[in-house]
């Protein structure tokens, strides 16, 4: 499935760092002393806001740095992939996961917290495919998948996922049999959903690490499928 490869691949994506060229040197405070001329209106606006909030003592710059570091470097779809791989290899864990996702994941992996207080796993079956959206904002299981990609938060996805999920899936290169039931979960409360995809064929005897490498972010949202076993040879 060629277009699946366009999605973030397991080994990269959340670990990829954005350009740090625009970081001020660490010893230099952010704020109005910077050259305004090179900044866009939104850059100016955010800098001004941070400077006001710091000056008033509402926020600590180092705390903001720590928040950014958490979501840029520490938390991402590899967390979710580990959960999925474990569910594929450990039937008892899978049972606990489907019963109370948040509890099972916290006990087994220690993942949880902000935007993942009430995690639920949705199990795909040969004749049932699950897909997750937030039509009203951008609800997403942060502790398992990190921050959502732009497309997940975008109007095209949020508007169409509930009325034309097959059309959306087609754009992701996923074509399901006409008889497959499609369940679209609209995250309208504080529950956060993780799709548990079908285990790819030809992976008997694989360990968790090997399996986790097949698990893409998109297949845990329900807009993709795991990589096939053959794709794993690198």
């Amino acid at each position, binding site marked *: 499935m060629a277009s699946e490869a366009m999605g973030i691949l397991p080994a*990269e994506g959340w670990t990829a760092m954005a350009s740090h060229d625009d970081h001020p040197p660490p010893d230099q405070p952010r704020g*109005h002393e910077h050259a305004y001329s090179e900044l866009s209106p939104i850059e100016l606006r955010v800098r001004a806001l941070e400077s006001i909030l710091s000056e008033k003592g509402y926020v600590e710059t180092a705390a903001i740095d720590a928040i950014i570091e958490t979501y840029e470097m520490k938390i991402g779809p590899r967390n979710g992939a580990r959960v999925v791989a474990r569910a594929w290899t450990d039937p008892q864990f899978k049972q606990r996961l489907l019963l109370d996702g948040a509890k099972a994941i916290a006990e087994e992996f220690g993942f949880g917290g902000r935007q993942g207080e*009430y995690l639920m796993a949705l199990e795909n079956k040969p004749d049932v495919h699950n897909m997750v959206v937030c039509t*009203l904002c951008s609800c997403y299981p942060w502790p398992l998948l990190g921050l959502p990609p732009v497309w997940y938060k975008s109007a095209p996805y949020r508007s*169409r*996922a509930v009325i034309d999920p097959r059309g959306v899936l087609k754009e992701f290169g996923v074509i399901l049999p006409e008889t497959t039931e499609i369940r679209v979960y609209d995250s309208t409360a504080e529950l956060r959903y993780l799709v548990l995809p079908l285990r790819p064929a030809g992976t008997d005897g694989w360990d968790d690490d090997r399996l986790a490498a097949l698990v893409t972010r998109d297949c845990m949202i329900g807009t993709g499928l795991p990589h096939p076993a053959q794709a794993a040879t690198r």
Partner: protein
Amino acid sequence: MNGAQDLGGMMGFGPVVREPNEPVFHAEWEKRALGLTLAAAACGRWNIDRSRYARETLHPASYLTKSYYEIWIAGLEKLLMQTGMVRAEELRRGQALETAIAEPALPASAVAGVLAKGSPYSREAGSTPRFAVGQPVRTKVMNPTTHTRLPRYARGKGGIIDQVRGCFVFPDSNAESAGEDPQWCYSLRLSGRELWGMEADPTLFVIIDAFEPYLLPDE
């Protein structure tokens, strides 16, 4: 409210465009927008539902043309002004002119713990759930001007209770800072044909999380 955030079922936005190897952030200011929003919220002057409402009340034309973190920043500025933490004049001038009214609530040393802990929204129930799994129910037709989590496309529709999720803070009340008013929350299964008409894909089901006050028994 029937704002631009309520996108389910709208048409004309075009295909879903993915970015290969998308970075977590696309600019330095996006990172600061995320960090500022989370750090400022820790001061406790508003809750998550109120912050969602602040974004939803942007002018629809503005909401639909701003990028995601631009919406966050506009929402954050609105909340800061509403709560008196920052004055409009300060935003205009780009500098603090008055003394703070709240203490910093999130020192850097506490970030990891706070993010790992999250904010629990479940509450002890004061009643038993009104509806049971498998029961047919109908969502209310309602058009509040305030915050709600019942999307327009799912109003006045018949469905089946799929799960009783638990008792949670009620966003419609919490967003108004009118108290948590905990309510039972259900997973409600609606068929594509109920939502979109007989031409809809017969294999489609949409499951929403619906609070008890959104629901009526259906025969």
